[in-house]
């Protein structure tokens, strides 16, 4: 009987095993190269805090004090971050000594600089009372927990970083939760003084985005910290406009494979092209972003329009549906330091993106290029920051000399009394507004006649689809050096 069972079941077993083999081999063949969800950080379960934060709270610092009762390290952690210090990193200064640089002391070509204008700029500081250089950066109770953890979407800040007068501190405190896009967006979507003004790839549409606005946030409801992974309140990421380092960049490959495409030819692009170049075909999709700001025309009694001319600020250019420009970037930045001499006859690049076609670590990245015309000291040949807001500021007095003198008092950079306006340029690498893959760039967007990449300017002899990439064209410095 057992022999008969063997005879009967052996073929069945063989057929079953063959079926399993075919199924498994088919699955292996279709194995997914790219498995980003495997790398997504788990989100902690929310603990309702309403019962712990019942108030009343006289001052916002009282809320912080209550938070510290249970999270005693929180303030000290925040105080180590650039959200608090407004110093991104330490570099070698012009005098050869270490110099901390960051939003606190660097010049840009939008509102020019924060130092003389703290009473307004610090409405985006993660603390209370930073309205002068005398601010106590060691005061743990001055840390603003609510700006990142409010979930009522009613918490708004004013000058000095204080909550606006109509904020219900108890309601806001009861709502605290892990940060959402609204918390980060309150400052980062409004950079440059208004929605979409500064970044181009971040604006108010990302509060409640559609997939076309950003595939991660719009289709998968990502929160900022899903990519900007945060440990002990230290948020990962580098702002290439205020730092020089390449160390802490958030990368697509934190989750995605280096060769995520089914098409090998697309995967080979990864050695020279950043993911963003193809997957962010356009930014400023629904709101225009500022592309140029000419301070030299300020102060005239011309017709005013927020997108073209304001007497206090000068003339602007805005663009909606911005097609990026493209340049090489290896992650590092050569940042113009405070007091660094410029050539006023040339265009000064405030944050030069390092890298070239010869640099194997560099990739072609999409950037928004913001062009400015801003004040400089004719004698000392450096860019200067006026005081624009508040008492004596240019926006009320329209007196450049007074504004520059007040600015010099705040920055410590002397003002000679003679000023002019020089052309400047800032690069804003684009990382957000990642389009659904169906809307990524196609071959013809770059490789056809009149494609969006200028191969000659990028250093190629011609279209690499025909001439070969930089490795085949022998353009990589390492390869050249490696030759006998």
């Amino acid at each position, binding site marked *: 009987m057992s022999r008969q069972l063997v005879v009967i079941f052996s073929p069945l077993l063989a057929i079953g095993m063959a079926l399993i083999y075919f199924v498994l081999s*088919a699955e292996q*063949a*279709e194995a997914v190269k790219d498995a980003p969800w495997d790398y997504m950080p788990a989100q902690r379960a929310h603990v309702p805090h309403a019962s712990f934060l019942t108030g009343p709270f006289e001052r916002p610092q009282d809320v912080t004090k209550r938070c510290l009762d249970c999270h005693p390290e929180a303030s000290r952690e925040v105080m180590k971050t650039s959200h608090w210090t407004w110093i991104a990193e330490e570099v070698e200064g012009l005098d050869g000594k270490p110099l901390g640089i960051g939003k606190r002391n660097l010049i840009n070509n939008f509102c020019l600089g924060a130092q003389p204008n703290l009473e307004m700029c610090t409405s985006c500081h993660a603390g209370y009372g930073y309205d002068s250089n005398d601010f106590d950066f060691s005061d743990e109770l001055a840390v603003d927990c609510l700006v990142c953890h409010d979930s009522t979407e009613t918490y708004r800040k004013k000058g000095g970083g204080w909550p606006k007068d109509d904020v219900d501190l108890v309601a806001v405190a009861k709502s605290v939760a892990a940060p959402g896009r609204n918390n980060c967006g309150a400052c980062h979507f409004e950079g440059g003084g208004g929605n979409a003004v500064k970044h181009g790839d971040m604006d108010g549409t990302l509060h409640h985005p559609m997939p076309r606005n950003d595939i991660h946030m719009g289709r998968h409801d990502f929160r900022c910290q899903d990519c900007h992974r945060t440990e002990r309140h230290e948020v990962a990421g580098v702002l290439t406009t205020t730092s020089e380092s390449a160390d802490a960049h958030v990368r697509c490959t934190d989750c995605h494979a280096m060769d995520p495409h089914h098409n090998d030819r697309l995967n080979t692009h990864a050695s020279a092209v950043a993911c963003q170049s193809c997957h962010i075909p356009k930014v400023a999709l629904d709101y225009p972003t500022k592309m140029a700001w000419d301070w030299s025309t300020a102060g005239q009694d011309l017709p005013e329009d927020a997108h073209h001319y304001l007497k206090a600020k000068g003339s602007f250019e805005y663009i909606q549906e911005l097609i990026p*420009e493209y340049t090489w970037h290896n992650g590092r930045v050569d940042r113009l330091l405070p007091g660094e001499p410029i050539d006023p006859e040339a265009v000064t690049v405030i944050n030069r993106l390092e890298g070239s076609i010869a640099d194997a670590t560099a990739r072609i990245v999409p950037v928004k290029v913001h062009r400015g015309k801003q004040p400089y000291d004719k004698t000392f040949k450096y860019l200067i920051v006026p005081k624009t807001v508040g008492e004596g500021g240019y926006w009320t007095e329209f007196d450049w000399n007074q504004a520059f003198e007040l600015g010099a008092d705040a920055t410590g950079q002397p003002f000679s009394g003679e000023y002019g306006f020089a052309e400047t340029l800032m690069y804003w690498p684009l990382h957000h507004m990642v389009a659904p893959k*169906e809307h990524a760039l*196609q*071959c*013809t967007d770059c490789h056809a006649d*009149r494609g969006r990449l200028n191969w000659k300017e990028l250093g190629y002899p*011609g279209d690499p689809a025909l001439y070969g990439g930089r490795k085949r064209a022998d353009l990589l410095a390492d390869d050249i050096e490696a030759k006998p």
Partner: protein
Amino acid sequence: MKAHTSPFLETILGVVSRFRAQRLEIVQLLLVLAALLLLSTPAWSQSVSFHPDIDLLDKEGQNVLDSGRPVSTVRSCGECHDTEFIARHSFHADLGARSFDRVPAGASPYDRGSGIFGRFDPNLYVWFEPKDPAAHADTTFDDTVLRPKTPGGVDADELERWLDQLGRWHVGGGPFADRMEPNCFLCHLDVSDNDARLRAMERGQYEWAATATLASTGAVVDRNGQWRYNAKAFDPDKSINLERVRILDPSSRSCGQCHGLAVDGSEPVEWSVGMKNPRTELTGEIFAAQKLYHTRMNLAGKRDLTRPWDVHAERLLDCSSCHHSPNNPIFARESANTKPDHLAFDALKLSIGEYLRHPNHQLVKGHSSAQNLANGLDGSMRRCEDCHDAMNEHAWLPRKERHFRALSCEACHLPEMHAPARMQTDWTVLNQARGPVVVYRGVDGDPNDPLALIKGYRPVLLERRISDEQRPKLFPHNLLSTFYWVGGEPQQPVSVELLAQAYFDESGAYHEDLRKALDSNGDGALSAEELRLDSDAKTQLVSARLQALGVKDPHIVGEIQPYSIHHGAAGRGWATRDCAACHQQEAQVVSEGMRVAAYLPGGVQPAFVTDSNADLRGSFQRADDGSLSFVPERRSGELYVFGFSAWPWVDLFGLLMLVGSFLGIMGHAGLRVYHARMGGS
């Protein structure tokens, strides 16, 4: 700093700011900008032309700036290229004239050639009068065409009529070499002005057609119907400056000027009805890199149509990538039929210089199911499998070899056409523009209406045997029926002129009796839906009018032409990959037929043409609304589709196996029982 603004752009910005400061008139500013644009070579322009400057010569070899006569391409281009050779051998110039009156077996009785010169295409409705076979048994092409006054040959008026009606698709040379030289500019100039060329031809200025093609370069201008050269567009030495006029390999746009909609720019794809784009009109094929949603067409579900119109166009290929010159040393390869077995690659090729001197313009081609021109070149082009290694892809597909034996790549990678295509051309009636009534598939409503919703259509899969492969494969097709009147002795199609006399009075209005008969709703006007002979009474009325005009035995015939579809391929994500699409009883892809006529004029059932290489076995089904569909024989046909087909002998074999197994088991069990009862030893 790395400059991201081109010098050109910076120059413009500089001028703009200076003009702003000086508050000059905006018109002046625009003029300066326009001049800068015209004078500057775009920095992003990347295609390279090594072509030297050209001296444009007339037939006498004199520079056209001096003579003012039309450009002779044979003389001008012949300075370097063997233009006599080019004009002599290519089927683009010949258009079938070489095989005139030597039509292949199975051809239509109205065919006198295999190309558009001589072949009767009912969509275009142009044909040559039949010659008297007895009188001209020994005549040659030269006798009948090049000497058109030969009695019984093609009359000069007929040639003129052909040129007038079909000349837009003729590049020059061939049967009309003395009227129109081969128009090199039409295919090789990146800004060829086809509209100007057609304008010249419409005026009968055939000798100026090639010259007019240069209009977009500014070298020649149309002044009150006369073509005048613009000396400013020439260099001081009277040659044409090729910094602005680029001579290149033909682009897809070049080919598209005659063959179908091919867009190689970035502008939105725009479709319009008419035989101006014949392949698009007949099949819905569009060759463009743009994504489907990037169009002005009112496509259904447009937002989600994120694939390009053609994946190859999107991947930077153009028409000549596959349809190349056979002796182009870059692409040339020897046919598998003639290649020595021991060679995988033959290094003996023309040098670039030799090729440029004698470029073979007999472009390689595939196996069309609707054309018989240059059949000797069938299969000479690169097909999908010449570039793609399908076995290394399709990891998801079980039994790949079996699938690839039965299916063409197009069968899965052209699952749906997204542009409308013709379903029916009805020449039994004439619309007010003296044209046929045309019914399209894939569109709701009048395709001329920009608001008509374009839904596209699913091609029907028909078996075709291509190349020397042993088994036929399934290819996607559109089936197009045409209906027209024939009569006379010998029978031939009734001309549009006669039809017009039958339908219209001297004022150009429909004859009153016809109008009343056709005007179903009695509103006094004839809509497209009313312009159809859908009753005996209406048919008899037109028949009587034709007879009155001298047409003997007028009657309606209908034919169905399958058009194979090869362009507009979808990439992997959009190809058919659902097993159930074919392998189940209700599998639509293999079972679905195709509507071939919305109505049957005169109740005539159309028949398939007899010179197609497609397997047209199947059945016709008439629906309640009067439409006719064709359903290919598949369920019991030669091709066995697992899960769908039902071959009786397979069923019988299965039944026998079942019964046999049952009997075997029962017999075995019976024997065991018997054995046990008998005592077991």
